[in-house]
């Protein structure tokens, strides 16, 4: 049990460093879509909610889990949709003329 937590801490720390390095390189141009994208990715919490609701250990946990799935799923769907919509709008003036 204790060792698991230690491994988790390592994972958290490494992911934090990767996050810093990767996100520092994101152009300020894209900070709004970045936020909606990370929001959608963050909704991966849905996997915890699915297991909670699906295992149905108590009615209480199943109800909370089900509501949690609704909240997270709406973030996944809405987050990816709007990120893609925003990114589609970013165009270069360069070579292609229309």
């Amino acid at each position, binding site marked *: 049990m204790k060792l698991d*937590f230690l491994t*988790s801490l390592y*994972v*958290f720390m490494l*992911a*934090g460093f*990767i*996050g810093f390095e*990767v*996100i*520092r390189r*994101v*152009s*300020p*141009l894209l*900070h*709004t*879509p970045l*936020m*909606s*994208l990370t*929001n*959608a*990715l*963050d*909704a*991966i919490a849905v*996997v*915890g*909610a*699915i*297991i909670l609701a*699906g295992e149905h*250990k108590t009615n*209480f*946990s199943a109800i*909370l889990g*089900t509501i*949690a*799935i*609704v*909240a*997270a*799923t*709406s*973030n996944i*769907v*809405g*987050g*990816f*949709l709007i*990120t893609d919509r*925003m*990114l589609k*709008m*970013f*165009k*270069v*003036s*360069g070579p292609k003329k229309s």
Partner: protein
Amino acid sequence: MMSEFASTQLIEVTYLIATALFILSLKWMSSPATARRGVWAGEFGMLLAVAGTLLHRGIVDYKWLAAALVLGTIIGVPLGKVAMTAVPQRTALSHAFGALCVTLVGTAEFYLRAPSVPPFMMAVLGMEVILGSLTFTGSLMAAGKLQEVLPQRPITYKGQNFVNLGVLVIAVIVAIILVLHPERVYLYPLIVILPLIFGVLMIIPIGGADMPTVISLLNSYAGLSAAAMGFVLDNKLLIIAGALDGASGFILSVNMSKAMNRSFSNVLFGAFGQEQASAAAGAETRAVRSASAEEAASILAAANKVVIVPGYGMAVSQAQHKVRELYDALTKRGVDVRFGIHPVAGRMPGHMNVLLAEADIPYDKLMEMDDANGDFAQTDVALVIGANDVTNPAARTDASSPIYGMPILDVDKARTVMVIKRGMSAGFAGIDNPLYYSDKTLMLFGDAKSFVGSIVREISGGSGH
């Protein structure tokens, strides 16, 4: 059917691939050229992880899962289709949803394990639930203010910070007691309710112009609470996604606070919106030069290089499409038109870029603050549309100004400055802007959208002569 071992292995493999895809997704966000690929990678990783999770052997009941997934999709689609001007409040709302999910799962996990929750698990569970709850109400409040359902102006009272921090400190103390004595199950509701109250209190003193920092901070909290949930569930994918989101929100908050010249601790403790009310008193009437659309049009049309500086006022008056027409009309006449964008212009990080991109303005014409500042000396006309404090030269020159030291766009270095503004009222910070009284400044009084519209008519009408 698969053996339990095989199915667990399969789930772990989907999580592993999803993790790699999530990291690639953020990496591809670094440039507009690859960013859409990033979204696809994220979507694919998400799909894989959710599909893998559905194979989990312990799942006994699929019909509620299906119903919840469908309902979430039904709510999510309209949230993905809001107008670009509503993106800040949509983002705040999605932080609230994410935090709600995390808080509910944490609560259910606590009651499933109580009264024997191991100390380390109780500690991360406490973090998960405290951060989740305060992010939930805080984000709802922020969304309400941005949507203007709630009053946008900051509400402050004496001892506010003391009360706010007090509520949070009590919640943390209760969580510590639960770590030491998890059998005191009756204490648990306090670590949900107190942070819920704190979330509301935290946003009450926040004004509109502080929103970019606050949204980023809530983003970071939402990520950290999800990472804490990963610790509780021993789910590495969740820890990584949460850490990435937390890091992203943290970087954005630091950027925003730097762009407003606030220290990060000032931001962390929610002590925003304190500085106003100090100024605005010395609003003596000084002479300003104003100009008509016709005059503005002839100056712009004669320029070689124009830098447009948009602010929240452009978003409010929905002027971005008229600005695009102005951009077209001037470009057609051979004028070099670019945009200078301050990091905190608007209501969230990158807000102006998205609005201008929506209006089909090519992104290579959008300059960050430092690039724009290198350009103003060679600029004929700086046209400020609905921005105020971010162009205030007092930030450079007047040590007594509340915004002294804040990095600004040096529009006053351009040969001519034009400011489209509804009236002479001070900006968010309530500070007078000396730029308006400079002899090279022309004030264009009116609504941004209609004023830009009239300038465009003058320029196009005058062409050919």
